[in-house]
C-alpha cells in the first residue's frame, strides 16, 4: 500500500469525527461567540460587535457572586469526590479478587442507571427535615430537632459527590489496574513503608488518572444546572442557573451566550492548570 493510500485511509477514518466536531462544536461555538457580541433591543436581536453583555457581567454583583458560588461548589465537589473515590478504586483494584472486580465496578456505577433528575429528587427526600438522614440522627440521639439539610449548598454538594465519585472511581481504577504489582514489591523490598510506597510510587503513577477524572468532574459540575436547581433550593445561584433565567422569560440569548463563554474561559483555565498531568487516553 502506498503512502498516499495510507494517507487517504487515515483521512477516511478521521473525517467523520472531524465533521462531527466541526458541526457540533466548532460551528455552535462560533455562533455562540457571535451571539455574545450581539445585543437584544426589546425582542429584536441586533447583530454586531458589542461588548455590552460582557460589561453587564462585570457590572452586576449577583453575576460575580454566581461565578464565585459555582467555583466554590465545583472545587469542593472535586476535592471530596477524589478523596472518596481513590480508596474505593484502590479497594476494587487491589482488595477485591479479580473475578469479583467486574461485579464490584458494576455495583459502583449502578446509580448511573437511574435518571439524573430522579436521583436528585430522591436526595431531596432523603435530606428533608422528615427524611431518612434526620430521622436516623434523631434516632441515635445525635440531634433533638431536625436540621435543615435539603435546599442548601450541602445538599447540592452531596448530590454532585454521589454522582462524581462513580465517575472518578472508574478513571482511577483504570489507572490503578494498569500498574504493575512489581512497582509496589520493588519499593517494599527497598524498605519503603506502605505509606511511603503509596506517596512516592503509587500516587505519582496514578496522578494522570486522578487529574483526568478531576478535570471531567470540574467541567461537568461547573456547567450543571439540574443538581443546584433541585437540591440547592435557590439558596444561592450558580452560573448555569443565571443563564437559564436569562433564557426563560426574556430569551436574552446574547447575555446567556456571554455568560456561557465566560464559563468556558474558566474551564479552559482549569484545563491549562491541569494539562501537565491530564491524560485523556487513560480513560
Amino acid at each position, binding site marked *: 500500500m502506498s503512502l498516499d493510500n495510507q494517507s487517504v485511509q487515515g483521512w477516511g477514518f478521521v473525517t467523520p469525527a472531524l465533521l462531527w466536531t466541526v458541526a457540533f462544536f466548532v460551528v455552535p461555538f462560533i455562533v455562540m461567540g457571535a451571539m455574545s457580541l450581539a445585543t437584544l433591543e426589546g425582542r429584536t436581536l441586533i447583530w454586531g460587535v458589542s461588548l455590552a453583555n460582557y460589561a453587564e457581567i462585570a457590572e452586576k454583583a449577583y453575576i460575580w457572586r454566581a461565578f464565585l458560588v459555582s467555583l466554590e461548589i465545583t472545587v469542593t465537589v472535586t476535592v471530596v469526590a477524589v478523596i472518596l473515590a481513590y480508596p474505593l478504586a484502590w479497594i476494587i483494584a487491589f482488595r477485591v479478587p479479580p473475578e469479583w472486580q467486574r461485579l464490584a465496578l458494576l455495583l459502583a456505577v449502578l446509580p448511573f442507571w437511574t435518571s439524573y433528575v430522579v436521583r436528585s429528587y430522591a436526595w431531596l427526600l432523603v435530606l428533608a427535615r422528615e427524611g431518612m438522614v434526620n430521622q436516623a440522627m434523631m434516632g441515635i440521639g445525635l440531634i433533638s430537632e431536625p436540621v435543615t439539610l435539603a435546599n442548601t449548598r450541602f445538599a447540592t454538594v452531596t448530590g454532585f459527590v454521589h454522582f462524581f465519585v462513580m465517575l472518578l472511581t472508574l478513571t482511577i481504577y483504570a489507572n490503578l489496574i494498569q500498574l504493575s504489582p512489581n512497582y509496589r514489591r520493588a519499593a517494599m523490598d527497598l524498605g519503603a513503608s506502605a505509606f511511603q510506597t503509596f506517596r512516592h510510587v503509587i500516587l505519582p503513577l496514578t496522578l494522570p488518572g486522578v487529574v483526568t477524572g478531576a478535570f471531567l468532574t470540574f467541567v461537568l459540575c461547573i456547567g450543571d444546572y439540574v443538581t443546584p436547581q433541585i437540591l440547592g433550593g435557590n439558596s444561592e445561584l450558580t452560573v448555569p442557573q443565571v443563564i437559564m433565567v436569562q433564557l426563560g*422569560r426574556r430569551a436574552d440569548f446574547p447575555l446567556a451566550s456571554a455568560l456561557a463563554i465566560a464559563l468556558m474561559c474558566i474551564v479552559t483555565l482549569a484545563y491549562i492548570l491541569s494539562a501537565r498531568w491530564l491524560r485523556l487516553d487513560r480513560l
Partner: protein
Amino acid sequence: MTRLSVLFLTTSALGVTANAALAEGELNALVWCDHTDPALIEPFEAEHNVKVNLREYEGTGAALALLEQSRPGDWDVLVIDGIDVFRAVEANMLAPLDTSDLPVGDFFPEVVMEENNTIDGVTYAVTEKFGYNTISYNSAKVDEADMQSLSTVWSEKYTGRISIYDYYLPVMGLAAIAGDIATAEIGADDLPTIGETLSTVRSRAASVAGVVAAQTALATGEVDIVVGGGEWLTAVLAEEQPELTWTIPEEGAVRWAQSIGIVEGSENPDLAQEFIKYIVSPEGQARLATSSCFWGMPANSKAGDVLTDAQKDVLRWDSQPDYLALTQLYPAPDTDLDIEMQDLWLEMLQQ
C-alpha cells in the same frame, strides 16, 4: 441485509402506515404541561381522528425563541401566559382568532381579559384557565389565622418554614400588594419598596423552589408555607394530604391566566380553531382544570356543570366571586422594567 433488519424495517413501515391510517391529520401545539394530560387530549383526537403533537415549554421567551427558529406552518396552536399575548402579537407569532363560535359569553367576566387578548381591535387569543399566586400552607402545622394577612405569613414566627415560588413576576406582585401598590401600576420607583419586602420574605424562607420542588417541600414537611402558591400547587396533593390547602389573604393576591391562540402561518387553521373550541368548551375546560400536571380554574363558568362537587371544593368554586374581586392580574412589565425586576429578583436570590 439480515432477517432482523428486514423484520425491523417491515415492522416500522407497517407502524407508519398504521398510524397514517389511524390519524387523518396532525396538530402541533406548543403548550404548558397541563395540556399534556391524555385525559384532556385523547377525546379530541378520537373525535376528530387526528394526532395532537404537544411540545411543553417553560417561559414565554423560550416559546418565542422556538417559534422564531421554526418554519412557518410547523406550529398550529400556542398556549401562552395571558400577560404575554401582546409579545407574541408584536413578534407576529399569533394569527387573528375568530371568537364568533367560542363561548366567550360564558366566561367569568374578570378573566375575558380583552385588554390582554385583543390588540388594536383584533382578538388573537382567549383565556382558557386562571388561578392565583397566593399562599399555600399546611393547615396542621400553621395557625390558619396567620395566613389571612401577608404580614403574618412572612413574620418571624415562620422563619425557616417558608418556600418562595421561583417566578419573579407573581412573587413581586404579591410583595407589591403587601406594600399597597397595584400590580398594574408597578414602576421603577416602586422597586425599592418591593425589594425591601422581598428581602424580608427571603430572610424567612428555607428555599426558593419551582413547582415540583415546592410541592415536594410542602408534602414532605420541609416547609409549611409556600409564598406564591395556590390551588395549582396543592390541588393535586389534596386527595392524599387534605391538610395542604391555600387561601387568599385580606390584602389580596395575584391572579394568573393563560391564553390560547392560533399560530400565524398554521397549515391547519380550521383544526386549530376546533381544538381551541374544544379546550374552551365546558367538557374541555373541566378536563383542563383538573389536569394531572396542575389544577386551575376554568375560564368558562359552564365547566361547573361538568366538574364534580369534590373537584369544585378543591378549586373553591363558590368563593370565586370574592377571590376575583380580591385579586389583581400579575405584573406585565415592559422590557426595561422587566429587566430591572429580574435583576432585583436575582439579587434577592443571592442574598
